[in-house]
């Protein structure tokens, strides 16, 4: 295998494919990326066997061939070469990377050890706008769990709701729902958020094809593709948690609430919740940490309902409020021990249900 390409282009395809490479993989071969040259096309594949990212680049191909090179090292080596053309040659168990003087000779990994990966998958195919899709994913993704002991909760549910696509995630403390009315729905499919988080950086934000199959989900743009094994489990029944209406409704400026919770967080480490006393005149916010001190403040807000004091984990509250797109947020509540619902004013597309902290 022998190619020549622009430094920045080559560094980019190596680094993006390398995002799928796990930092602590038990198999040495999975620390590498597979580089394949055919015609004038270089294809780079990185995988941790659950997530696979493929990137492609038009190159000056002097000799076709395949090699596996250490992902992080090769990408960094290319990136640190002087600007301009870079050539990469694989022969006799070594890969030589040179450009304008410096020369790396890196040990090749055994190309035959690289796992055989499925190419694409069958299933419902959707076309989405990459930018709005990745932003919708990041809105619900805050609620996805990172706890591998509860795999079902580490995924984002894709499902049809009428003629819209709905994305749902929950870590059991909060639940985020995002409706995308401009996309057709699908059969319920649970996709690891760990993979979805990479979409923007791995594939860019152009037009994206989404294929949800029985075993894998595939995402592709003109810059490459990402495929991931779906989570084969039933997502919990979340619909029963979203009541039609709430007795109490608060409308408050997103920034004033975020700023106030930010100040409260200075005091509220260690899972200490922030208390919100909701009443006609607005919010009395307070946080007390026994050995440290307290913070209190008043926040202007519109409130309709019974006076109520409810407490939330500051991080979970911040996550939900930040994810709302509008400048004004709505907080609906019914009871200090029942979940509150956060959404944007005149924005039904995103809802964030947050369980309170019992004092």
């Amino acid at each position, binding site marked *: 295998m022998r190619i020549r390409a622009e430094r920045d282009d080559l560094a980019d395809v190596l680094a993006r494919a390398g995002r799928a490479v796990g930092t602590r993989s038990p198999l040495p071969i999975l620390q590498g990326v597979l580089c394949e040259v055919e015609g004038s096309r270089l294809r780079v594949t990185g995988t941790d066997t659950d997530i696979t990212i493929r990137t492609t680049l038009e190159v000056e191909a002097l000799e076709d061939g395949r090699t596996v090179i250490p992902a992080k090292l090769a990408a960094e080596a290319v990136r640190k070469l002087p600007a301009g053309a870079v050539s990469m040659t694989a022969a006799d168990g070594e890969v030589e990377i040179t450009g304008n003087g410096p020369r790396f000779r890196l040990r090749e990994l055994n190309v035959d050890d690289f796992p055989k990966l499925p190419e694409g998958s069958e299933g419902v195919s959707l076309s989405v706008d990459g930018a709005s899709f990745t932003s919708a994913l990041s809105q619900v993704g805050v609620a996805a769990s990172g706890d591998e002991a*509860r795999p*079902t*909760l580490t995924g984002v549910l894709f499902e049809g709701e009428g003629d819209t696509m709905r994305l749902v995630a*929950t870590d*059991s*403390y*909060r*639940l985020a729902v995002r409706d995308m009315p401009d996309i057709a729905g699908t059969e319920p499919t649970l996709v690891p958020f760990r993979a979805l988080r990479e979409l923007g950086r791995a594939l860019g934000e152009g037009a994206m094809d989404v294929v949800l199959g029985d075993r894998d989900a595939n995402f592709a743009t003109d810059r490459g593709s990402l495929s991931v094994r779906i989570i084969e489990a039933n997502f*919990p*029944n*979340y619909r029963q*948690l979203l009541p039609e209406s709430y007795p109490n409704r608060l409308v408050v400026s997103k920034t004033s609430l975020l700023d106030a919770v930010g100040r409260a967080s200075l005091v509220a480490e260690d*899972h*200490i*919740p922030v208390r919100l006393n909701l009443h006609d005149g607005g919010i009395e916010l307070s946080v007390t940490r026994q050995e440290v001190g307290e913070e209190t403040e008043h926040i202007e807000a519109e409130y309709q309902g019974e006076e109520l004091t409810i*407490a939330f*984990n500051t991080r*979970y509250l911040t996550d939900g409020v930040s994810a709302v797109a509008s400048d004004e947020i709505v907080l609906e509540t019914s009871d200090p*021990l029942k*979940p509150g619902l956060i959404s944007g004013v005149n924005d039904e597309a995103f809802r964030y*249900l947050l*369980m*309170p*902290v*019992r*004092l």
Partner: protein
Amino acid sequence: MIDGMASSRTAAVLHCDLDAFYASVEQQKRPELRGKPIAVGGGVVLAASYEARAFGVRSAMPVGRARRMCPSLIVVDGSFSDYLDISDRIFDICRDFTPLVEQISIDEAFLDVSGATHLFGEPGTIGAEIRHRVRDETGLAISIGVASTKFLAKVGSQVAKPDGMIVVDPATEIEFLHALPTRLIWGVGPVTERKLAEMGITTIGQLAATERNVISKRMGRGAGGHLHALAWNKDPRRVRREHRAGSVGAQRAFGGDHRDPEFHRQVIFGLADRIGSRLRKKDRAGRTVSVRVRFSDQQVVSRATTLVAPVATTAAIAQIAEHLVAVAITEAAEGRGLSLIGISISKLVVSPHLQLELPLETDGAGGITRAGSLHDLERTALDAAVDQLRDRFGKETVAKASSMLRGTRGVPDEFGDLAIPVSER
């Protein structure tokens, strides 16, 4: 941690040791038992009165054997909570003299009175006053050793027993110590005593006179050096005031070689029940659960796990502990059975805020170990009901069906606590 400032050349360390504690408490409570050989325990003697000891009855002895040795033996059930109360009262008396009280078990404590002498007089005077007040206020006898080190103070109280006090003058402490048998050294049990005897060493003086290397060769370098240092009263440990309880634990030694998971489960549940109810009584919950298991050949192995949020339900503690015991067995048992299981819970928080979970019903029993889950809330309510019933109608009112049906009465579980340092109880 506050350390004692006792200089090594003044005798200001007191070791206070209650005499035949449980048996004496029972004799205090029931005057008809006074002067008679009694034993506290169920299947096994937990404590014997001095009258029973005269017949050779010792703690840890099966009751049947004790009865054969002493046909007039009266065996009584213990009442652990009484013992804890009285123990607290007695060591509170000690705290009237110095804040530096290090309680090492239910019936023993070290005191450093070096900062108290200007108020209360010489250490020996303080010791005498403590003995007087304990006798006056509880009717119990407490023996006291006063010396320059913890080690020698403990030796002193052993020599002083029963119902006595010894003040070891630093000027003559080595002579005093060297005349004593090696078994009075803290940590010298029958096995070590025999090993030393095989080397011709029966007194502490002989031990002191033997080259350290010679002892180390026989006993191992660490143990050898340690023994040799003690024989010269070299003991740098200071009296430390204990922290507020940073953990709550309990253990149960059942002896033998138990492999039946159902038996382990019952022991674990019993321990979890006690730890849970104590945590809840103190309005605490903990994030780290540790287990200690002892295999049939005495080897001890520990495993621990730390949770995201603190738990206090019996069910959560039991489930996590059962898992950890299973891990310990899988990783280290190599075919051996268990003779002891201990559980402790640490990283405690007071009246924890509880992040509730959405009622998702995602998982089966797994939710029990997650604070704030539906399962956890159910278990919390259940525990609260059980705690309340027990408070009103007594400890035996409610228990898990399997533990009630078991029906065998061995050593009451709560006595397992006695093997655990006070700060962890």
